[in-house]
């Protein structure tokens, strides 16, 4: 296990120090976007389409404009005058800011009403008279490629049908051959439905343009402020918005989970509105607007897993249909349209794999935004972990044993996966065994055998997943061409206290504490003496932001390396102060001393003071450093999760009795925060496994667009989580860390699904798609009895 190098007072890595950011949140003094109030600020409300697919015949603003306090109604035609009615998505598709002729999904933005107050703006929105001519929408993605399907995107020149792209990786012929000749092949079509991040704070902005200074300031719910600044400059450069005149401020963010990465149309309209009107404009999405624009997952995966008769996995094949709605708004790196989906070969050692995917347009909200996983890892892990369980059931082998026999062994790292990744580190066997011990796996197996004799339904489900997180390296990963690195800038003040700024942006992950701990570890300055600042593009160094578990792998590494640059400088100063040569100086946390004479020493604070007051001749004054970190590889967090459930035959009710999660996220900065991230991620794992999923009717209407029917788990549905760790440090990360926050969201759903399906196995039920609700279980039981 990890041994702390620093004292509790210094609070470096491994200390569960309490969070520095808590006080303002506990006292109601957080500063979220909706808390921003500027003089003369106006409110914007969007008019949205009731139809999934319709021609807009007319938009009549008159009645709205007649309401006292309504200042403007902005339509697509208005924006078209400035060529601002379309914008690129993060994956270089195109998306309407506001439509000029056609709406493509229910609740699409149709026009915007700007008023002096939010109640008047809502009145105005209701008074806008929009005439539509509804058309038959494509809701089922399997019908999108029918010959007689309407062409949804005639605006795109090369688009002859509704296919967005075809992607494939691996050796199709060889994989097919191995599958054709295998002893055992299991097959399944697995669907991961659309779900929503449902952060408790919705999205919003306050855009404020000053005509005198020509400066645009936007307070924005964004996880990636710098990337957004560049996108705004690229999209609106032609109307005179230049990047140095754009300031994006991401204040406190009430949960992100990927939902605050994209640029939403209303942001652009608010910017256009402040530009035209010259007053600040606030837009805050309501919950229904937020949910109905639901977008993550939505993969239909046809999986085949081949093995020998005793269960040695030989090949995996997956062919996916991806429903992207009317535009591909995936926030994936541009060379990876399916994100890191090719991690789908999992934690197992075999040679042959093939993955292909066809993405299609439908009349749904823009699809494909990554939700708390490093670009499609959740889909990949669900596919392989369900199939491994299905194989175990088919050949009658304990799923734990099947996994142990197929794992990549710890001496095989770095491991080249069949679809091209280089897994950096792990000890899968130790991790699963630790989870089995913590649960008491063998006892539960006995209990299950007994219960089955009594006709009761009890299931045990395992998921042993491997994630791939922390993009770059920049040679492979970019967003709209911007290389994916991240940054840290450290300023140590003369009195030995520090301010550090980062290109990332916390949304609850605790960066103000953990980054300070990294610097405390590296410099020996107590974490309480270090201020952390993020989210303001005018002050923070450029970075790509926080998502895909990349903050610790990239910005955390940047912090360590910037601190080491300072330590090297400090060594020179210490040598000067102690009147010895640099080679004679050694470092231990917080101080420099003379080799062999530890009584001759200077603390880091004394050295820093000298950098401003007693500078060695010829040395650049000051004690500041910046580093932009471009990782050599991704990191591969992994874990073993086991879930025990009981299912009531008469009602289909599912009771999660135990859930044990063992994670290997490498070296840990703050165990308390890591545990908290795992707890939260697990609840976001049980959510899609048992409760959440955006439902559509045949007309493309969303059937569960509020929290009344989109069931975010409460404290009652959320089980008591049991967590633990194994640690195999990442060999290429300066701190040996890997990133953690997404592992539980990725790893939990298949463990829960496997447990429920295992409970139902005696009835002959072999698969259920998530969310596995009591109703779905009840129906399956009826169909099988």
């Amino acid at each position, binding site marked *: 296990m990890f041994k702390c190098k620093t004292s509790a007072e210094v609070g470096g890595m491994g200390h569960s120090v309490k969070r520095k950011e808590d006080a303002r949140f506990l006292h109601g003094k*957080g500063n979220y976007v909706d808390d921003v109030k500027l003089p003369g600020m106006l409110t914007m409300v969007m008019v949205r389409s009731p139809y999934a697919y319709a021609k807009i015949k007319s938009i009549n603003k008159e009645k709205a404009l007649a309401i006292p306090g309504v200042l403007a109604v902005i339509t697509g035609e208005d924006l078209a005058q400035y060529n601002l009615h379309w914008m690129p998505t993060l994956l270089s598709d195109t998306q309407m800011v506001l439509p000029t002729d056609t709406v493509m999904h229910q609740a699409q933005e149709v026009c915007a009403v700007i008023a002096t107050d939010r109640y008047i703006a809502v009145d105005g929105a209701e008074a806008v008279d929009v005439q539509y001519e509804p058309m038959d929408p494509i809701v089922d993605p399997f019908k999108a490629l029918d010959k007689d399907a309407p062409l949804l995107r005639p605006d795109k020149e090369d688009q002859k049908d509704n296919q967005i792209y075809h992607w494939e990786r691996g050796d199709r012929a060889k994989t097919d051959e191995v599958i054709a000749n295998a002893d055992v092949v299991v097959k399944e079509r697995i669907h991961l439905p659309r779900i929503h991040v*449902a952060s408790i704070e919705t999205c919003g902005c306050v855009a404020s343009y000053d005509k005198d200074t020509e400066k645009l300031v936007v307070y924005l719910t964004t996880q990636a402020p710098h990337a957004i600044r560049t996108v705004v400059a690229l999209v609106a450069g032609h109307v005179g918005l230049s990047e140095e005149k754009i300031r994006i401020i991401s204040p406190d963010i009430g*949960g992100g989970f990927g939902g605050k990465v994209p640029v939403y149309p209303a942001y652009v309209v608010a910017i256009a509105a402040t530009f035209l009107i010259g007053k600040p404009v606030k837009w805050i999405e309501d919950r229904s607007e937020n949910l109905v624009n639901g977008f993550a997952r939505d993969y239909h995966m046809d999986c085949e897993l081949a093995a020998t008769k005793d269960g040695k996995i030989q090949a995996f094949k997956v062919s996916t249909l991806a429903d992207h709605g009317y535009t591909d708004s995936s926030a994936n790196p541009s060379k990876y349209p399916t994100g890191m989906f090719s991690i789908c070969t999992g934690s197992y050692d075999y040679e042959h794999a093939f993955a292909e995917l066809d993405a299609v347009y439908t009349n749904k909200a823009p699809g494909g935004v990554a939700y708390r996983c490093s670009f499609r890892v959740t889909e990949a892990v669900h596919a392989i972990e369900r199939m491994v369980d299905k194989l175990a059931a088919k050949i009658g082998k304990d799923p734990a044993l099947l996994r142990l026999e197929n794992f990549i062994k710890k001496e095989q790292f770095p491991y080249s996966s069949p679809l091209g990744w280089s897994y950096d580190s792990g000890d899968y066997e130790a991790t699963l065994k630790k989870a089995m011990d913590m649960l008491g796996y063998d006892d539960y197996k006995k209990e299950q055998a007994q219960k089955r004799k009594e006709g009761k339904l009890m299931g045990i489900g395992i998921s042993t997943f491997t994630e791939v997180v922390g993009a770059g390296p920049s040679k492979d990963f970019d967003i709209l061409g911007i290389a994916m690195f991240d940054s840290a800038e450290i300023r140590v003040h003369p009195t030995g206290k520090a301010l550090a700024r980062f290109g990332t942006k916390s949304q609850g992950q605790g960066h103000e504490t953990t980054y300070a701990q990294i610097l405390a570890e590296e410099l020996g300055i107590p974490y309480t003496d270090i201020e952390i600042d993020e989210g303001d593009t005018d002050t923070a160094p450029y970075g790509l932001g926080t998502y895909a578990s990349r903050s610790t792998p990239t910005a955390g590494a940047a912090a360590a390396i910037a601190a080491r640059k300072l330590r090297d400088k400090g060594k020179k100063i210490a040598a000067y102060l102690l009147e010895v040569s640099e080679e004679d100086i050694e470092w231990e946390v917080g101080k420099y001393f003379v080799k062999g004479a530890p009584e001759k020493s200077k603390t880091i604070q004394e050295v820093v003071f000298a950098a401003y007051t007693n500078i060695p001749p010829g040395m650049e004054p000051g004690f500041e450093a910046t580093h932009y970190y471009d990782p050599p590889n991704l990191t591969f967090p992994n874990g073993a999760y086991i879930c025990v459930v009981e299912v009531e035959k008469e009602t289909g009710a599912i009771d999660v009795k135990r859930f044990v999660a063992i994670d290997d996220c490498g070296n840990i900065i703050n165990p308390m925060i890591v545990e*908290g991230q795992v707890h*939260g991620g697990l609840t976001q794992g049980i959510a899609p496994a048992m409760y959440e999923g955006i439902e559509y009717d045949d007309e493309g209407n969303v059937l569960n667009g509020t929290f009344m029917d989109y069931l975010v788990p*409460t*404290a009652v549905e959320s089980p008591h989580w049991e967590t633990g760790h194994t640690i195999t440090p990442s060999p290429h990360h300066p701190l040996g860390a890997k990133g953690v926050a997404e592992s539980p969201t990725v790893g939990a759903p298949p463990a829960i699904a496997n447990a429920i399906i295992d409970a139902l196995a005696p009835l002959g039920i072999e698969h259920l798609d998530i969310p596995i609700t009591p109703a779905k279980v009840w129906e399956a039981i009826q169909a099988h009895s």
Partner: protein
Amino acid sequence: MKHEITLTINGQSVTAEVDSRLLLVHFIRENLDLTGTHIGCDTSNCGACTILLNGKSVKSCTYLAVRADGAEITTIEGIAAEGTNHPIQQGFHDQHGLHCGFCTPGMIMRSIDLLNNNPNPTEEEIRWGISGNLCRCTGYNNIVKSIRQAAEEMQKEKETTV
């Protein structure tokens, strides 16, 4: 239509003229600039807007300001003296009961009411007690622990004052 209302908020008397349709949460946030009370759903499901109204936890996003005429209201800003923590705030800090902090004020206001009615709740009673408040970050384990810590602390305080 405008109405004059007078109410007490965090110990201070306030008189204001409000529209019939003004929601209490907007009155608190926008008229009084007490932005610790949040809006998360508009349908009384998430509880981010929870306040105390005459000592009981109420979701202020579906409560009209006019209806609060004469009421005594406490928001997150009013539960502890400046620079100090209410035992529940301390519990959330010590047990890492918050991540993004957005649900936290509502969760704390609800917990005050919960502990007023049940000073020594079990884990299950706490889970049911806060089931009208959604948290998307923490997975609730540590919120439960935070409230348990506060319950124990408040019990001790009671014993010493008696």
